[in-house]
């Protein structure tokens, strides 16, 4: 087997051109977190070292993914094939603007999660492996954003799911196991559907490389055939489960309020968005004809998700469950972008994903701070937080405005793009309804967030406190959090929300580049197969 004893012309099968050191950035995010996760796992008994090590590796992850993003913007799409085996047989990591942007934003959120975790995860949680799990979760998330191979995408999904199971049961409470079972079962079904669809796709095309499939689909006489539509429908169901779209969304509010609040924060930021990312990747890049086929269905699902998510948020009085429904409403907006499918709509969906990653993580962290200040997650027991910390009340108001899509914060611009794209669309049967649903959902979310602000911040004390009077909050649970380490991550994320709101050009440009990269995938295909592709 050794190369020297048998003479074979390897240039037919292997890439022989030297790989620039900068191209290694493509695997850097997954590699850094994998090494960091392994190291933290070995040292997990050393609970004082854990946060330092974990945060250092997450910081390195942020730097690596930022450098990767800059390089992708400079050089266009970058591809690296594992083990130098040529595509489509070698597994390719292909990074375009979409993947690099999401990986960068995801890294920032994970870094903030690591900082927040230093305050909110106690030494038992650390010994059970909070930081190894967080790092390995990011291995999966970044791998999913950066890979150019459908089966490899499945593998990264598994990596992030296994880590997320670990994070979900970190405290070993009964309620956590209950949440983990609901989360686990539905996600297992989802990944199995994903795997089945991938098997069918391989059966049709004999390849799993995304660029290769997109070329082969484009060359088909009848790209909207029944077989492909079946595969696409399976993918849609699988990714809709991951993304928590109606009607397969019940697992999210049932499980996201059970773990440590920083775990909820990272999950709410990242996991559902990986599902949306996969949806964009598969439906816009690989199977565009099937997207046209299913557009009406996706639009319908988006509308129902938008409305039920927002109404669900209105009905809740537990802050974390309420936020779970707000996550779902946001998923509806991103699905709306996929349903419309124009470049404007997809860039709106990408921008919305970025906004949602940041703002949902920040909101869950804010919920943790509310618990720290008020001693409860229950709106009926919270109150008078404005009196306790005015600056935090302002931060929460900013986040609430942002998540509802009110100017001048980050949620406003992607919603404008999505509504604009939906109203412009003539082909979609529910185009107008879709645009209207985004607006109505935004209005309902405003009410839900306003309700939180009025009850938890404005009202003088817990439920029943008369107007104009103050009462002390009932200390129902011992606060989990302490110290100032919670303010830095919350501050970073809120600053991002404000920045994206006031300076949206940068992110709109990135999102548009990401959207046109999947919409017209010439650059993507050329990066994998060279000029002849």
């Amino acid at each position: 087997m050794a190369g020297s004893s048998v003479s074979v012309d390897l240039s037919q099968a292997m890439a022989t051109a030297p790989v620039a050191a900068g191209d290694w950035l493509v695997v850097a995010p997954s590699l850094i977190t994998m090494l960091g996760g392994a190291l933290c796992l070995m040292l997990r008994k050393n609970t004082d070292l854990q946060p330092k090590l974990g945060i250092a590796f997450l910081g390195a992850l942020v730097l690596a993914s930022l450098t990767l993003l800059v390089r992708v913007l400079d050089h266009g799409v970058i591809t690296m094939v594992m083990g130098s085996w040529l595509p489509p047989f070698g597994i390719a990591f292909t990074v375009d603007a979409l993947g690099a942007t999401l990986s960068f934003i995801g890294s920032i959120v994970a870094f903030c999660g690591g900082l927040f975790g230093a305050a909110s995860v106690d030494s038992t949680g650390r010994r059970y492996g909070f930081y190894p799990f967080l790092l390995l979760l990011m291995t999966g998330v970044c791998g999913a954003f950066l890979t150019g191979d459908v089966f490899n995408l499945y593998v990264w999904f598994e990596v992030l799911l296994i880590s997320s199971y670990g994070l979900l049961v970190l405290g070993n409470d009964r309620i956590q196991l209950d949440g983990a079972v609901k989360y686990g079962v539905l996600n297992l079904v989802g990944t199995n559907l994903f795997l089945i669809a991938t098997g069918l796709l391989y059966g049709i095309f004999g390849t799993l490389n995304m660029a290769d499939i997109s070329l082969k689909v484009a060359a088909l006489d009848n790209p909207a055939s029944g077989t492909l539509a079946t595969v696409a429908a399976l993918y849609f169901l699988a990714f809709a489960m991951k993304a928590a779209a109606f009607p397969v969304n019940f697992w999210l509010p049932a499980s996201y309020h059970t773990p440590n609040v920083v775990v909820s924060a990272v999950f709410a930021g990242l996991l559902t968005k990986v599902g949306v990312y996969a949806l964009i990747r598969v439906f816009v890049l690989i199977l565009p004809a099937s997207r046209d086929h299913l557009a009406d269905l996706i639009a319908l699902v988006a509308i129902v998700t938008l409305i039920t998510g927002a109404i669900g948020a209105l009905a809740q009085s537990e802050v974390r469950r309420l936020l779970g429904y707000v996550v779902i409403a946001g998923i509806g907006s991103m699905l709306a972008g996929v349903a419309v499918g124009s470049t404007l709509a997809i860039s709106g969906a990408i921008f919305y994903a970025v906004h949602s990653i940041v703002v949902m993580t920040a909101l869950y962290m804010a919920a943790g701070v509310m618990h720290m200040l008020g001693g409860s997650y229950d709106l009926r027991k919270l109150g008078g937080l404005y009196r306790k910390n005015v600056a935090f009340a302002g931060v929460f108001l900013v986040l609430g405005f942002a998540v509802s899509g009110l100017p001048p914060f980050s949620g406003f611009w992607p919603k404008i793009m999505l509504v604009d794209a939906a109203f412009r669309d003539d082909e979609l049967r529910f185009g107008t309804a879709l645009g209207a649903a985004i607006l109505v959902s935004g209005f309902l979310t405003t009410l839900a967030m306003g309700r939180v602000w009025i009850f938890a911040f404005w009202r003088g004390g817990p439920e029943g406190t008369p107007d104009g009077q103050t009462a002390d909050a009932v200390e129902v649970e011992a606060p989990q959090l302490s110290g100032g380490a919670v303010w830095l991550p919350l501050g970073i994320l809120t600053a991002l929300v404000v920045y994206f709101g006031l300076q949206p050009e940068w992110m709109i440009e990135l999102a548009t580049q990401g959207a046109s990269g999947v919409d017209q995938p010439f650059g993507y295909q050329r990066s994998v197969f060279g000029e002849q592709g």
Partner: protein
Amino acid sequence: MRTIIFRTIAPYLSALMVLFSVFVLLRGHNEPGGGFIGGLIAASALAIYGIACGVASVRRAIVFHPMGVSGFGLFMAALAGMLSFFKDQAFMTSQWLIFHVSDVEVALSTPLVFDIGVYLVVVGAIGSIALALEEREAD
């Protein structure tokens, strides 16, 4: 389960299984075998030893916590893929070091290092599950 026959035979059986697992690991490059299956055999050896002589003696015998072994394996596997960085090649491109000891050709390679990493991950992960279950049973 703790009959005298089993307790007498288990240490020898475990030792044999670990030896066999290393054999399976090393032949894996060209023939059936490899890190994963080798790791499973070694983990079974730990499990058998645990059933016969108690989990505490297994933990003493392997010195490190199984999850630590697992972490080390992952670390090693990831590093094995990075060696190609210094030769301007893509991640995980295999690197070979071939030398001759008298007449025998010895081929060391990064896939071997990777495979040993996989072996350790499997031993650690499956081993810690098995030991945890046996501990639960003993309670």
